[in-house]
């Protein structure tokens, strides 16, 4: 186990370096000269452009630029600044709460609805509620987040007018539709997973023994059946927290939510390279770290798994 943890930690470092390097490199290849774009129609003196290039390390060789950039993040939490001079850490600090709020709403929906639906379907296998959950989850899992987002917007936002269709002015209420849209795929998968595990568990020997001992049905299901069924779901939901960040780009754009995901999309359109690299790097770091934690958690939670 200790060896597994050490090996996993050692793998983490090169993955982070190469992944961030790729993102940084891609942006390096962005077309056009951002300094000229900044100057707009008015011509800028060569000296002024040179000063700006120097300030953003644009004259250094590529790897040196990357090195300076990573050094800045590690030592000072400095993700660079926008071309208009605003530090990116400012923007992140301002927009991160919005995205975290969206992530929190999404995650709660996935965990609560997914697990409850899965338990109901598993307990009442082959009954109406099970069939209902099965059909619903097939549809939820097979529709892209984008489509679910727009459908919710059209039905519950425009047609029924129950929820706002854009922005975050109404507080928690404005996060509900985007949260459901973002949660749909994983909720479906979590429900299916809980159902499958619970059905297996309820047919297992230890549950039969518990029933034979005369324990109440409630105690058998809760203490014996569910306990083992929830392990894979916990790790699945954990891993999903990481991928959820990518989904924020789409959903924040669909629902006009001023978070980090929408910021990536906006700055790509505006060719603001530093912003793209900064936020994407942040996302990738988050993604890789969560995956690491989940892997370790999985090994810890499930004693059946042995790592040599």
């Amino acid at each position, binding site marked *: 186990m200790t060896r597994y943890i050490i090996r996993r930690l050692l793998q983490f470092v090169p993955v982070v370096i190469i992944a961030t390097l790729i993102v940084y490199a891609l942006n390096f290849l962005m077309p056009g000269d951002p300094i000229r774009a900044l100057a707009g129609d008015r011509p800028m003196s060569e000296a002024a452009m040179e000063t700006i290039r120097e300030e953003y390390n644009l004259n250094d060789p590529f790897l040196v630029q990357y090195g300076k950039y990573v050094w800045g993040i590690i030592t000072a939490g400095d993700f660079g600044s926008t071309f208009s001079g605003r530090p990116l850490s400012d923007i992140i600090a301002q927009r991160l709460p919005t995205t975290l709020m969206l992530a929190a709403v999404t995650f709660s929906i996935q965990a609560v609805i997914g697990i409850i639906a899965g338990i109901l379907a598993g307990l009442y296998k082959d009954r109406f509620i099970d069939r209902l959950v099965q059909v619903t989850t097939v549809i939820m899992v097979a529709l892209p987040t984008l489509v679910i987002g727009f459908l919710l917007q059209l039905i519950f936002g425009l047609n029924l007018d129950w929820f706002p269709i854009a922005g975050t002015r109404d507080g928690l209420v404005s996060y509900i539709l985007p949260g459901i849209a973002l949660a749909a795929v994983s909720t479906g998968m979590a429900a299916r997973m809980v159902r499958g595990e619970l059905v297996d568990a309820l047919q297992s020997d230890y549950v039969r023994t518990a029933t034979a001992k005369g324990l109440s049905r409630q105690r058998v299901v809760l203490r014996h059946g569910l306990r083992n069924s929830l392990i894979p779901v916990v790790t699945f939901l954990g891993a999903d927290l990481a991928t959820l960040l990518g989904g924020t780009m789409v959903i924040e754009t*669909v629902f006009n939510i001023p978070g980090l995901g929408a910021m990536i999309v906006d700055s790509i359109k505006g060719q603001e390279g530093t912003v793209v690299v900064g936020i994407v790097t942040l996302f990738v770091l988050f993604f890789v770290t969560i995956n690491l934690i989940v892997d370790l958690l999985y090994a810890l939670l499930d004693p059946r798994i042995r790592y040599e």
Partner: protein
Amino acid sequence: MSEKTELDETTTRDARASTTPPSEVKTSAPVGAGDGGSGRKEAEASLWADAWRSLRRNPWFLVSGALLVVIIAMAVVPQLFTSVSPHACDLSQNRQAPTADQWFGTDIQGCDYYSRVIHGARNSMIVGVVVSAGVFVIAVLVGLLAGYFGGWIDGLLSRTTDMVFAIPYMLGALVFLNIIEDRGPMQVALVLMLFTWPTSARLMRGSVMSVVNSEYVMAAKALGAGHVTIMRRHILPNSLGPLIGYSTVFIGIIIGAEATLTFLGVGLQQPAISWGLQLTDAQSYVTSSPHLLLFPVIFVGVTVFAFMTLGDAVRDALDPKSKR
């Protein structure tokens, strides 16, 4: 991106399932014998015949199969569905609501929206099929080499796979596509391929590894068969099942991803006819002309749904473990 979770989940699910070789059936006893097909010929008990038999009874397969036939026809010969040209537009008639004459109304350029939406199927389908086929080839190569040879080849290939896997594919594709100035279906497809192959490669490696130590492979080795022969004759046919099912699901995932990237402004570009572009245009008029949003959303949704459901059904049918 949430589709990514489908990618992840597939790997874990198949990793668990792969403790039994997917199709030992072929070389050992006929598996179909148990479920009442006693009078059938030996040939019909093969993995594929068996899968086909269980597929025909699966309602999800029938529904998604029927939908796919219609959608593929739409992509290949859109003229079957509409005689109106998608380029015949009348600006004075823009953003009209649906009527009996123009079923889907008109778009912001005054073009017949029904015709535009029908013609949008082709680009989505090209991207989906090209990416899925390309990733299939990469996955077979990487999975076979890594799973069969093991050792440093596996180490090198698996670490490379891990690196690419560490980048969420939507983020990678978004940043990469942004540096390409002229983006047609092929450019979008290539970039998506670049970032999405790891899941399939891992899946393939897993199923190769589950057959590589089986008796029939050892027997072939003992009889002096070469690496290429063993891989082609014994390993490939017995490890391809999960990847085939997943590749169908994958077409759906990619069509969703393409529409999303195009909607975000880094996919296909005007004047291409594409569902993603229609969504971008429609978003600005969502309150005044919701029909502009509704129709492409339904078409993208149904297409992705059909591929993913069909792929799931095929995957279940090809997995002997899932049979009851």
